[in-house]
């Protein structure tokens, strides 16, 4: 693997094509070298080793270029979920293809009509003959343009309550009938996609888990996603930033850049952000061990999730405050980026489920508070009121 400076890694913008080709190439090399899929079972192309081996490899690989963008969602969420819920054939085909660097997988979950209420998806899967026919739209799919397959949650039965009529499919992204569009974000990123499904035909072999039991599969995805976002997945390989834009802010470099390295007021603000950054990392380890030893319930992943976005908010607010006008009007080399990053600050509080939903989860599933009232509970989905979308 090529050597890199971990503080200045090569750009790996998820919105561009080239980094994905590069990642597949790097993954192939890892596989050929016998270091791919360390924690995946041997029968599916992995090494079948415990997490300590992955951690040791992470430490060793820190200064080398790694296919970091394949970790999430391909390995930590999609392959992990297929491992939990897929058929023997699906596991053998897709997990090993991903480990060999031949397949990229994504999640097709959120829909234009709503994100937080995931079980309320309205993309249809209709049984026609011995085929499934998919119609609808998905959105906020990370890097779907680069993917080979997507885990798609669709409604296969409208006569039962919302959680009971869902089925998960593994759909080839190049299937006839799929139209893909890039979403441009405030910060200019085009990594997310929106997909339209017009009479896309799938066979029974595309079903992951059981028909009408798709919520179970989706729940595994959400579980793996929360762990992955917090940095607690054994299926991630490599450590450190994904690319240039993912490197944490160096506050001392900001103070230098604006020519006020000895300003104690700014140093104190920066110090506070560094404290919160350090605690964020400590909390990840604490929750990971807490869930493992049973002192915290699995839903505690939501604690990491909120703390992650709160820390990012504090860091971005602090960077904006420190740079002052240099962060909003070009002048000092590189500082306009601080203002631009700030504009998409809320991404971290929205992606992977909003922090509001995460707070409900903590309240209801960790503290045991009564569930929020839901008008659709126990009601056949076709009778549930929907907004105009």
């Amino acid at each position, binding site marked *: 693997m090529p050597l890199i400076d971990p*503080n200045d890694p090569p750009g790996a913008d998820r919105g561009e094509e080239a980094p994905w080709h590069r990642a597949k190439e790097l993954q192939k090399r890892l596989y050929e070298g016998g270091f791919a899929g360390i924690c995946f079972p041997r029968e599916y192309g992995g090494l079948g080793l415990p997490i300590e081996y992955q951690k040791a490899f992470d430490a060793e690989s820190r200064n080398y270029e790694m296919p970091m963008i394949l970790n999430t969602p391909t390995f930590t969420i999609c392959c992990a979920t297929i491992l939990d819920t897929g058929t023997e054939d699906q596991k053998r085909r897709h997990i090993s293809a991903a480990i060999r660097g031949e397949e990229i997988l994504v999640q097709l979950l959120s829909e234009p009509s709503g994100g937080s209420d995931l079980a309320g998806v309205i993309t249809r899967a209709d049984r026609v003959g011995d085929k499934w026919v998919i119609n609808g739209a998905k959105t906020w799919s990370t890097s779907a343009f680069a993917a080979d397959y997507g885990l798609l949650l669709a409604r296969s039965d409208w006569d039962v309550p919302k959680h009971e009529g869902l089925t998960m499919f593994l759909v080839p992204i190049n299937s006839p009938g799929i139209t893909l569009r890039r979403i441009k974000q405030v910060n200019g990123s085009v990594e997310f996609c929106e997909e339209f499904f017009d009479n896309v035909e799938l066979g029974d072999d595309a079903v992951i888990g059981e028909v009408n039991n798709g919520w179970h599969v989706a729940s595994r995805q959400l579980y793996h996603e929360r762990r992955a976002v917090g940095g607690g997945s054994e299926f991630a390989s490599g450590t450190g930033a994904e690319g240039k834009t993912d490197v944490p802010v*160096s*506050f*001392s470099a900001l103070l230098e850049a604006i020519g006020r390295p000895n300003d*104690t007021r700014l*140093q*104190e*603000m*920066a*110090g*506070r952000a*560094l*404290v*919160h950054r*350090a*605690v964020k990392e*400590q*909390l990840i*380890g*604490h*929750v990971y061990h*807490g869930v493992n030893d049973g002192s*915290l319930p699995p839903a*505690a992943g939501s*604690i990491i999730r*909120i*703390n992650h976005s709160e820390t990012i908010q504090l860091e971005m607010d602090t960077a904006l405050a420190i740079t002052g006008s240099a962060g909003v009007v070009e002048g000092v080399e590189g500082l306009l980026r601080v203002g631009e990053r700030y504009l998409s600050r809320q991404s971290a509080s929205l992606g992977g489920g909003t922090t*509001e939903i*995460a*707070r*409900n989860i*903590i*309240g*209801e599933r*960790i*503290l045991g*508070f*009564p569930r*929020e009232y839901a008008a659709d509970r126990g009601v056949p989905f076709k009778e549930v009121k929907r907004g105009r979308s």
Partner: protein
Amino acid sequence: MTEADSPERLLFASTAQAFLEKEVPLRRVRELHEAGVSFDPEWWRRAAELGWTSLLVPEELGGGSVSGNGVEDLAAIAELAGKTVAPGPLHPVSVVLAGLVDAGGHESVIEALVSGEAVASWAVYEPGKPWTPMTSTVTATPTASGFRLDGVKDRVEAGAESAFVLVVAQSGGVLRQFLVPTDAPGVSVDPQRSVDLVKHYARIGFGGVEVDESAAVGSPEQTPALIERQSQIAMVLQCAEVVGVLDTVVDFTIQWAFDRHSFGRPLASYQALKHRFADLKMYLEACRATTRAATAAVSNRDRAAEVAVSVAKSYVGERAPGMIQDCVQLHGGIGVTWEHDLHLYLRRVTLYRSMFGTPEDHNLRVYALTKDLESAS
């Protein structure tokens, strides 16, 4: 932490907890306050018998810890003490013992402290000055037989109850520490009130106090490391005790949310309140995480202990008072009454927020230490 689960540690902790619950429940804390007493020395001797003062002391000096990890055992005691905002000189005695043990010598004082017969405290703050342990205006002037101490220290915890103080002084521009009996001629002790019900402090004056050469604790070369170690122990104990406070208060406030009804439904069913409780839970776990990390670093004498302790002290200090105030708010009017126990907890965490460095002080330290790390890499 696997050590936390060892049977010895669990037994030690459950004994300490039973002792605290029986001997110094909140009712007792209120009684002590009304009597104007900080703690009962006889009670402290019994706490010492349970091993609370032995934890940082090696076996050959009469100490020892059940798990072999004294700092973590001590932090466990501090956390339990937080559950009932216990009185007693656990912090000052532990800090002085940490210094004496690392410095070497002073065996008889160590013995007296371990047995609980005597109490000692660290005299490090000076009137009107913030937390700057590595500077001192108290002077130690060499004499024929030792040193003469002049100057004033303040915010000395349990100063009026202490038989000895460990004084930070400068001697010819070099930082030193001295163990001084509080009954030595020239020592004056003036009590200082605090916001806490039972934590008492004192201003201690040194007017030409003559001490023997042997009163010095550690060599000039050792002194900065000793002061750093003492600071680290003080901060870890504070953070651990605050975690005990937060755990207890968040817990009984959650119970309150289940029990208290308004508009025909429990408070726990309101989303606006649910989200506030979610934040309390998140901050509680974060305080626990950073305190454990700091405790482990100090226990292992990691190079990173310095920054880990400041991170924990800043974070816990920033969060804790606001969290308890939130719990007051969630309780409603009862929360601001003298009768309700919330203020006992609020007092302790408010005191600790600002003692041994404010979050703001520690933020500056974390910035400086991180910058050093960055430029070193």
